[in-house]
């Protein structure tokens, strides 16, 4: 292990080298562009040993990954926003084909209006494709989660593709240190991928994606649902192994900070969760019993860990950097749904903000948390949903 200084996107490109990825097919889109750009450079320098396929669209990128993964190759792509959305059909296909492809999504707002900065709507809108989803908060976490993602995806209990999302610019273009692992160091953790069930091989040919009528279709979908839910337990195992081998741990499906005796917990995804740590420290200094919980794994939704956390708190201040039009914050509503059939039903106040890359500062987070603290202290829940920092 050695310490390198790079942007999150360049670190993601290095993760491809460490994980001995065999095929990368990618199409540039800001702010993901520097991921494939750096992989192309590493390819030219002979540091990346796999194939790099320059495709004509994101739709082709994902289908090239599907082809590669179908032959048993470890495949990767990176994209953002409209690029991710152009892949849509292929995302469903990759999951239903049970192919362990890994995708780095650099969260970017969907247009119009045109905007290249972070909103989580691009990947949140893909939550029902079957892809396992992670959201990360640092360069180091992005790099290591991509390596872990292959391990989760290729586990026979899962065999589902994994999307690792990082906030556009806030993280993608932020330079920071991270602990780099040489491929030789990763080999024990991540042996070569061997498809356990089916593989495209001209010496033993099969055709895939055949027509399946009502007699069996639903059973394929049930298997995917089971596999996705398995990923929660598998990821806990993967992180345990990773910690043992490399001393790296990012907090499990829900990374918790000072939550043990917290009455109000701020939940968030991505880099806002890192910013929240400072807000919590300041509020603790001011005497508030508050904590932060960063939802790292969004699909499968970490239902049991969320219930365990809910059993300890009086309220959640749940922050979404995205919106499901007509219903509200994606994660806030999933937290509510996860708790409905549990004995633990703390207040869940939903906050939406930071859209289009609007800054979410320590002061913003403190203001949101204190709004929920006020609801707990007064006994008045107040609005279910608040758009933070919205112009009058």
């Amino acid at each position: 292990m050695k310490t390198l200084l790079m942007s999150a996107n360049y670190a993601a490109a290095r993760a491809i080298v460490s994980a001995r990825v065999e095929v990368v097919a990618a199409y540039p889109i800001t702010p993901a562009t520097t991921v494939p750009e750096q992989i192309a450079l590493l390819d030219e320098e002979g540091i990346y040993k796999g194939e790099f396929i320059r495709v004509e669209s994101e739709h082709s990128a994902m289908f090239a990954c599907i082809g590669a993964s179908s032959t048993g190759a470890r495949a990767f792509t990176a994209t953002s926003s409209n690029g991710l959305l152009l892949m849509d059909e292929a995302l469903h296909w990759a999951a239903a084909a049970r192919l362990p492809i890994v995708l780095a999504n650099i969260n970017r707002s969907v247009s119009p209006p045109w905007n290249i900065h972070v909103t989580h709507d691009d990947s949140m809108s893909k939550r029902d494709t079957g892809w396992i989803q992670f959201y990360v908060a640092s360069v180091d976490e992005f790099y290591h989660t991509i390596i872990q993602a292959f391990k989760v995806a290729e586990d026979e209990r899962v065999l589902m593709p994994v999307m690792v999302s990082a906030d556009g610019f806030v993280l993608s273009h932020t330079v920071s240190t991270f602990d780099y692992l040489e491929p030789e160091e990763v080999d024990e953790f991540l042996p070569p991928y061997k498809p356990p069930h089916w593989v495209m091989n001209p010496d033993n040919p099969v055709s895939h994606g055949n027509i399946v009528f009502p007699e069996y279709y639903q059973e394929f979908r049930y298997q995917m649902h089971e596999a996705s839910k398995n990923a929660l337990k598998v990821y806990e195992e993967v992180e345990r192994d990773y910690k043992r081998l490399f001393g790296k741990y990012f907090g499990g499906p829900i990374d918790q900070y000072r939550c043990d005796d917290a009455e109000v917990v701020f939940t968030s995804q991505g880099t806002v969760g890192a910013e929240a740590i400072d807000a919590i420290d300041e509020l603790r200094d001011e005497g508030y019993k508050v904590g932060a919980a960063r939802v790292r794994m969004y699909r499968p939704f970490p239902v049991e860990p969320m219930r365990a956390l809910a059993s300890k708190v009086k309220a959640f201040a749940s922050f979404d950097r995205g919106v499901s039009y007509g219903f509200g914050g994606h994660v806030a509503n999933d937290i509510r749904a996860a708790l409905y059939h549990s004995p633990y039903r703390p207040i869940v106040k939903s906050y939406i903000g930071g859209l289009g890359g609007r800054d979410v500062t320590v002061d913003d987070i403190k203001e949101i948390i204190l709004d929920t603290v006020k609801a707990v202290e007064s006994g008045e829940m107040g609005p279910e949903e608040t758009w933070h920092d919205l112009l009058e």
Partner: protein
Amino acid sequence: MVNQVNTEPKSRADMPKTPYSAPVIGSTGKTGSWRTFNPVIDYDTCNRCRTCWLYCPEASIDLDEDGTPHIDYDYCKGCGICAQVCPKKCIEMVRAGQEEAT
């Protein structure tokens, strides 16, 4: 085992994780039944030039080692391209069911 095919699963445990099938000749039916006209080769005139084999859009013409063409009537759809391109004009399109009459 990789690429093992189970044609009639009785339970979810018998099912693959995603649908795939092994190739079988005629698995979707022998499409030769579509023909209206059958190509018939006059082997006395045929000079084994392989033009018919090259042009057949269904790859339904097989060649012997000496280049003698044989039409696979299980898959030939009777399009007549072989007859059209034959330099010796020795492939005749015969209406199906009227072979005896010729």
